[in-house]
């Protein structure tokens, strides 16, 4: 099929797409957007988390045919032209990045959480991000980063 959908606010097209191939494959191998990672291909690890019409989803479990005429947001769309998003800055500042392979999915999931719940409690953060496995950090720095991002976004909203 000819696949047409919106990625990070821009129209994207790919030809000769098999409807059953994963959105993750389309993003990574056809559209040159390798930010979303492939780490389990069964929706268990969250490394490929994107937003599909605003809803967080594992791109490995979304068939290409399902995204026709829909909107997809990936980690590549978080930052502005020159400036990182508050969530991205917070992950760097808090030292929440190690090997970095879970990071893009976590950033999208954290962005989604903060949009739904601007000042989450610790248990809300832990529960919301429980679908994003990290093998390096032990999650403490990720908690710090999400708290920091929430504070900064609140600060930005006030000013």
């Amino acid at each position, binding site marked *: 099929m000819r696949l047409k959908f919106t990625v990070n606010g821009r129209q994207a097209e790919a030809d000769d797409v*098999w409807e059953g191939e994963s959105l993750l494959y389309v993003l990574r191998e056809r559209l040159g957007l390798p*930010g979303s*990672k492939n780490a389990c291909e069964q929706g268990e690890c969250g490394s490929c988390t994107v937003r599909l019409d605003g809803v967080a989803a594992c791109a490995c479990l979304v068939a290409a045919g399902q995204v026709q005429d829909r909107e997809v947001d990936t980690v590549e769309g978080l930052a502005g032209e020159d400036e990182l998003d508050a969530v991205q800055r917070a992950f760097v500042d808090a030292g*929440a990045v*190690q090997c970095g392979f879970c990071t893009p999915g976590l950033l999208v999931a954290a962005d989604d959480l903060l949009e739904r719940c601007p000042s989450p409690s610790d248990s809300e953060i832990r529960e919301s991000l429980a679908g994003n*496995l990290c*093998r390096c950090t*032990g999650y*403490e720095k990720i908690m710090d980063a999400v708290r920091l991002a929430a504070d900064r976004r609140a600060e930005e909203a006030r000013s």
Partner: protein
Amino acid sequence: MTSQVTPYAIGTALQRLDGRSKVTGTAPYAFERVVDNATYLHPVQATIALGQITAIDTAEAEALDGVITILTHVNAPRLASTEDRELAVLQTDRVSFRGQLIGAVIADTPETARQAAGLVRISYAQWPHEAELSSERSDLYTPEAVNPSFPADTDEGDVDTAMSAAPVTLDTTYTTPLEYNNPMEPHTTVALWNDHELTLYDSTQGAHTVRTTVAPVIGLDPERIHVSAPHVGGGFGSKGIPHAHIVLAALAARTVEGRPVKFALTRQQMFSLAGHRTPTIQRVRLAADTDGRLSALAHDVVEWTSKVKEFAEQTAVPSRNVYAAPNRRTSHRLAALDVPVPSWMRAPGECPGMFGPEVAVDEMALKCGIDPVEFRARNEPDVDPETGKPFSSRHLVECLREGADRFGWHHRDPTPASRTERGWLVGTGVASSIYPTLRAVSTATIRVEAADHYRVDIGATDIGTGTWTALTQIAADALEVPVGHVDLRIGETAQPEASVAGGSTGNATWGTAIVEAARALQDTHGRPPEIGAEASGTTPNNPETERFAMFAHGAQFAEVRVHADTGEIRVPRMLGVFAAGRIINPRTAHSQFIGGMTMGLSMALHEVGVLDTRFGHVVNHDFAEYHIPTNADVGDIDATWIDEDDPYVNPMGAKGIGEIGIVGAAAAIANAAHHATGIRLRELPITPDALLR
């Protein structure tokens, strides 16, 4: 004494230099390297544990549109060396373990390759296999050495006599399960063969290690193999020793010369192809006087290896160095089974080997009626019990005491099962940790590119540990310039040869090479050196190892809550206090410590590979069923450290920290679970059924 670098950047919490590229999704991991006209490889794996391939039918697979070629042992290029039987892929019709690579489909898309791999029909003659580990096996043998080159057995004094003479003794067996490293990035190789040159974009802990391992296997001059690994999504040992998939990718690339072959293992494939930690059976014997002073310590280990290639985990080795006991014995016995090849997993040896003894010490402390922190302090050796050498620095007791203060240990009623809060049984536990301070050999080159611009080249790797950042700090201090003047390049065989990121040796080895290069630059070219000046340095032997025993130490504390009705087990609090020389970067180090502790929590409560011995198959071979902790599984985990001034280990005074965080963590949790419930847990992982009485 080693001449020390004056720390300016060292010791500061410099932000991770690769942070920005990782949070924007632009850091290129192996599969993401831009190549033209790519092909995709999907392997065919054996579905029996032992036997012989009798027929292969590829007709249906080959008929699929987009299939380029299918490799099996029948048509695959011959390897130059099959001495390493793990790496000798597609060379015989023999199957030596379930999941072994026995074929490969190369196709235009990964979907096609995968579909075709499923259509390859293999017929086997199946032979009876052995996949059951037991200490009762009659074929257990003593390896010549255990990883990497320790003697398999040691025996000092007379353990048996000490055991019969002592008023307090313990003779108990502990087990740790089959475990998998599971870095988040699956093992990946992109291979391009062009005119007798092989380029490998690989997810590895050592670019040079891949080159020197693969070269003799495929029969290429090492200089013709180019390995690149600037960003690696975790390894934890499983990307340290190159595995068979790299050779398969190279063979495939040779077959489709000129077109790159992209090959990423799936999570499920990793369980048979990327190494694992052997299960261990550990008999621990302790003898003590009524004051809790150990007179004997024996640690006898039974574990497995693969018939394909021996890997002997050094599980009993830490028992040679931790506690003073005049009579000591350690041994390793292996069962060679028809299973995939075990390998390094974070703190091989120390991690499983500090589970049995550290639970045993808790049991002995209780028997003697002595606080477990105090018991350990009473058995603190004056010198390394194994070699008789003094320690270059050792602050285990200080870690224990500081941890006890910070954790609130002293408020604890030592009686097991004495504290209940709203239906939860609450307990606390402690364990020691130890990890050797080692170093390998590497070379670094520094070149003055422009005023205030020093380019540092070393073929080191950053698997998430923070190498990019820490080595930049070390280079800056070695050159006595700000970090902004240093342009570090790592991860390529084009750079000077460097050792693998393993054994917590990275910073010590690579940092020392960089310091040597900086000193050579200054000695040869003055200060500041002129533009264009260049010098190299290589990690020298450390003569101080003749005089001193060198280890990092730590103390692990855990609080465990067990639900009285359901047996649900939670770990709301963990604290690690470590003594590991000078900390290069507190920000990255803290994350390394607590990441290690979390992997220890994972070992305590979650991780177990369930092997169906009838088929030699690990049935829970994915993240759906092989569990590692999620964010919601962990509580407040913190780590701190005692500053050590150790001028003997290396010019930075730094000990490796990548592995010590996992050591002892599972024992601290098991001991806390006993304190909470009165149920002694000697088998990992600890699951609710074991806590229901």
